[in-house]
């Protein structure tokens, strides 16, 4: 089976991602409780004894990858692809101009 690192590390990282996603009430969220319960039930430790444990760990690592990648993708989208159009002021500022102010309106 694939070796996605130590189970405890995966669990901690996964819980951290869930906190990110959920906000303040993360501890009550179904996902947080489900993940903790699953790990407790199977007592995933460093001992590679049980196939069910390995499967659970793989699932946890996959879910961690999903949450992490979605967060990173969204951050990149906001950074590079989400800006939209510049305002006329911004465009003028690009070449060092300022828009003229005409208190009486255009003539």
């Amino acid at each position: 089976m694939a070796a996605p690192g130590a189970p405890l590390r995966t669990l901690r990282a996964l819980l951290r991602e869930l906190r990110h996603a959920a906000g303040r009430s993360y501890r009550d969220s179904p996902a947080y409780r489900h993940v903790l319960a699953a790990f407790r039930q199977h007592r995933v430790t460093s001992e590679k004894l049980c196939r069910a444990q390995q499967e659970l760990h793989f699932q946890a690592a996959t879910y961690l990858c999903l949450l992490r990648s979605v967060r990173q993708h969204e951050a990149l989208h906001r950074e590079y692809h989400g800006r939209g159009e510049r305002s006329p002021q911004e465009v003028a500022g690009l070449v060092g101009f300022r828009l003229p102010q005409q208190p009486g309106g255009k003539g």
Partner: protein
Amino acid sequence: ALFPSSERKRFYRNVSISQGEGGFEINLDHRKLKTPQAKLFTVPSEALAIAVATEWDSQKDTIKFYTMHLTTLCNTALDNPTQRNKMQLIRAAVKFLETDTVCYRVEEPPALAELQKNEWDPVVTWAEQRYNVTIGSSTSILGPNIPASTKETFVSHLASYNMWALQGIEFVITQLKSLILSMSLIDRHITVEKAVLLSRLEEEYQIRRWGNVEWAHDYDLCELRARTAAGTLFVHLCSESSTVKHKLLQD
């Protein structure tokens, strides 16, 4: 509700899960979530329902549908918009073998050819041993010559999955552009990160040579990882016999 644009303001406060006749349902406040074709959104696995609910609850001011991969996969499984039956899905998946990324090799430049050999040969060998088939690789523009018996073996193997899991498998294959990498991933032989790396081997090679462009390369990498991870998780959650409601998964 129908969502005409790719983004919409978050219109609900609470997301919860309930159990109905056909499986687990998602509630946005008091409203039950529906698919794009207005069917009731029901999933066979509680863990999957929780993950979908988490996607909905993670949305901040606007609902970013393009980040909700598990929801999208469930909608596809429920609506089956391409109207394909099980055998059509399986044949579409196995057809990918003819142009499988890891079988399609270059001869130039030598460094890339070497990299492909070192990184891809092991996973092809694994597949050949695991499934007792002949696959091989090719530098020909026509791609590898896959024996009919190999294809039939994969058809039989995929037939053991239910319809929902198959939608997931076909999705992963189209993302990774490789049946072999997808099976390696589904069989838990490699991680999502490794599968994506192997799928993007040539890109990674070019990035190492010419440099990384964050707004393009990393953007694509994260999106591919997200989709592949979602597809894999979806397949596993729909295949677990202990947590799955079989009535919903009828082929």
